[in-house]
């Protein structure tokens, strides 16, 4: 078996024990790695109904067969657990040297169980595992923690760590790495915090097993150069993802004022051009030649790394059009280890709820200084308000009442990314049926909707496009574990990825082989959902109700008077279910599960909820 180390490291923080476990080729071929490994392990090992913040939850770091191999853009890892935000399987990916170092230490996957007695740094070096004190940095942010780790071990080690958000069990706390990378939106950082696990450091010395190392070296390094040249030619990294903001503003897709509006005349003040003008540096992940992390200085002179999602949700969505102030809010989220997207939605929802009389408070759209205080309170769970803000929009809406859930911008508990789908039906579907809640990572079809079909369409072509993208973005890239950016943003051919995979593993897989695994993983996550929520229904796959509300329609602009139509969205959802082989609740049918070789998992799911 090449490409896989064949080993999982299982660590128990309660007992301070560890074990190197082997897995066989069948497991590797069926689940591949990354999201596939994490979803399967958590499905098999977690009993439904457990407390996500209790010691019985497990924190998983999963890598794929091309993770850490020099090739475009393989410096990523998947982090996963039962999500405290959504109540079922949750994950995310982030750029980290862990992708190479944990693999060189001999493992494709790390499972962390139990709960430490004291704040802990888990140190892994080849066969050695140490449970070290992290009390010195407990209570400190991710920048200080990262610096402390680099001071002890040097910059070449793989690092995962959390800030105050994770420590205090903020439900949208993330895992951080490389002073700018973050992953695990649905509170995976809070799961680390619940285990008093402040950081993980890995260092390895054994080469990753490959079928043909010289061929992979030639291929990988050559393609890294080619991606870098393509990036230069297209100029993508000049603004990186922040270029999207001006486009969303043109086509009425920008989140403004808790998604109430879709564009704003002052949006130019925080767009990609302004970000580029203010640029201090550009950062990337390991094995990356198209860097996406543009940093700017905030008013306090702190370096803040921006992308579109955080400018959209901490900027326009809060009606804050002062770029350094947006930089400050982003910096604080990164320092505390909070998801910028959920944090932006939490603050905008709070301002909206106050304005509509659902609650009382002193926060208004545009108030950057108060927003900073609220982020601090949310990260530290300061007082009643801090605790409320730390729980995410769904729980906040339940506490506020007054039908505020209609404008809590989330699906399945996870806040939506920075695309206003008031009248973008296909993207609304993409949020509705994303595997872990409203994540943009898995399918983004707005340009397809506008360019290759009509915005008004709720037809099967949009459902088909969502599935196609889920297979690629939420499937293949998440289980071979590589960044999707060269493909999606530069048009780097998708066929290159099976080529990397085959050169490393010695196999001969096609893209269809990849899609089969992707469909299997998506179905397994749906079974996980059913097990946790036996009353699962198609309503769970609907986007926020405010997008269907005619009173929320734009008064002017390209979508004036238009909102999503409920009956038509339901039809689009049914197209998705039909094409996926899911039943009317959005759960895979027994026939689909059998085709995907999930009979055993289906039998387990049936102990909790019926299959059709």
């Amino acid at each position: 078996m090449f490409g896989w180390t064949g080993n999982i490291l299982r660590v128990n923080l309660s007992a301070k024990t560890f074990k190197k476990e082997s897995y066989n080729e069948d497991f590797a071929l069926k689940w591949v790695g990354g999201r596939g490994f994490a979803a399967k392990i958590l499905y098999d090992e977690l009993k439904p109904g457990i407390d996500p913040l209790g010691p019985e939850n497990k924190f998983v770091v999963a890598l794929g067969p091309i993770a850490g191999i020099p090739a475009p853009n393989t410096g990523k890892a998947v982090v996963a657990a039962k999500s405290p935000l959504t109540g079922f399987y949750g994950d995310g990916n982030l750029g980290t040297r862990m992708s190479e170092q944990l693999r060189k230490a001999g493992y494709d996957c790390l499972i962390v169980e139990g709960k430490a007695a004291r704040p802990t740094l888990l140190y892994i070096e080849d066969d050695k595992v140490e449970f070290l004190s992290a009390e010195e940095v407990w209570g400190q942010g991710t920048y200080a923690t990262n610096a402390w780790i680099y001071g002890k071990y040097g910059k070449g080690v793989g690092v995962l760590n959390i800030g105050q958000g994770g420590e205090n069990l903020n439900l949208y706390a993330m895992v951080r790495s490389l002073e700018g990378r973050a992953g695990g939106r649905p509170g995976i950082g809070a799961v680390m915090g619940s285990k008093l696990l402040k950081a993980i450091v890995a260092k390895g010395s054994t080469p990753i097993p490959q079928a043909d190392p010289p061929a992979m070296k030639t291929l990988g390094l050559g393609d890294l150069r080619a991606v870098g040249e393509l990036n230069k030619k297209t100029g993508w990294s000049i603004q990186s993802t922040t270029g999207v903001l001006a486009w969303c503003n043109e086509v009425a897709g920008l989140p403004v004022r808790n998604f109430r509006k879709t564009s704003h005349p002052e949006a130019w003040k925080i767009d990609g051009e302004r970000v580029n003008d203010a640029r201090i540096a550009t950062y990337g992940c390991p094995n990356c030649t198209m860097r996406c992390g543009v940093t700017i200085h905030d008013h306090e002179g702190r370096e803040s790394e921006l992308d579109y999602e955080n400018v959209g949700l901490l900027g326009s969505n809060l009606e804050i059009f002062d770029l350094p102030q947006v930089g400050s809010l982003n910096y604080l989220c990164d320092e505390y280890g909070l998801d910028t997207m959920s944090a932006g939605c939490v603050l905008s929802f709070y301002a909206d709820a106050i304005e509509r009389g659902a609650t009382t408070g002193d926060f208004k759209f545009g108030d950057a200084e108060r927003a900073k205080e609220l982020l601090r309170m949310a990260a530290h769970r300061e007082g009643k308000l801090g605790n409320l803000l730390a729980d995410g929009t769904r729980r906040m809406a339940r506490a506020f009442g007054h039908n505020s859930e209609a404008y809590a911008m989330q699906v399945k508990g996870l806040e939506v990314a920075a695309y206003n789908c008031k009248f973008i039906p296909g993207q609304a579907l993409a949020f509705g049926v994303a595997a872990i809640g409203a994540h943009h990572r898995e399918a983004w079809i707005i340009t397809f909707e506008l360019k290759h079909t009509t915005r008004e369409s709720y037809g099967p072509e949009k459902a088909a496009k969502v599935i196609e993208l889920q297979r690629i973005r939420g499937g293949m890239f998440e289980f071979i574990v590589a960044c999707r950016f060269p493909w999606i943003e530069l048009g780097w051919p998708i066929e290159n990825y099976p080529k990397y995979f085959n050169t490393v593993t010695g196999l001969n897989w096609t893209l269809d082989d990849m899609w089969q695994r992707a469909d299997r993983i998506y179905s397994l996550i749906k079974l996980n959902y059913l097990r946790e929520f036996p009353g699962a229904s198609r309503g769970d796959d609907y986007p926020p109700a405010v997008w269907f509300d005619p009173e929320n329609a734009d008064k002017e602009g390209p979508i004036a008077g238009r909102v999503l139509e409920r009956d038509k969205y339901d039809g689009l959802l049914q197209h998705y279910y039909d094409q996926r082989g899911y039943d009317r609740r959005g759960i895979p049918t027994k026939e689909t599960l059998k085709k995907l070789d999930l009979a055993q998992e289906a039998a387990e799911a049936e102990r909790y909820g019926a299959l059709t």
Partner: protein
Amino acid sequence: MKIKIKMIGPLIYEAGFSEKEVDVPAETTADDLLDILHVSRQRPKIITRNGKAVAPNERFDEGDRIAVSPLYSGG
């Protein structure tokens, strides 16, 4: 006729401006505009007219706002 052009992302640096009003011949199409702006027709892109996507041969009208953007994929 006068139309307003908004360039987006890296196309700003390719065209040498971000936003301006330009005088173009009547019945200028999206493809004609790319030639005027010296942006390759082959470059993957999306052009919108007053917020709605246009076909390459669609003609513009006086006062239109035209945005020319790379084909972003949402990060």
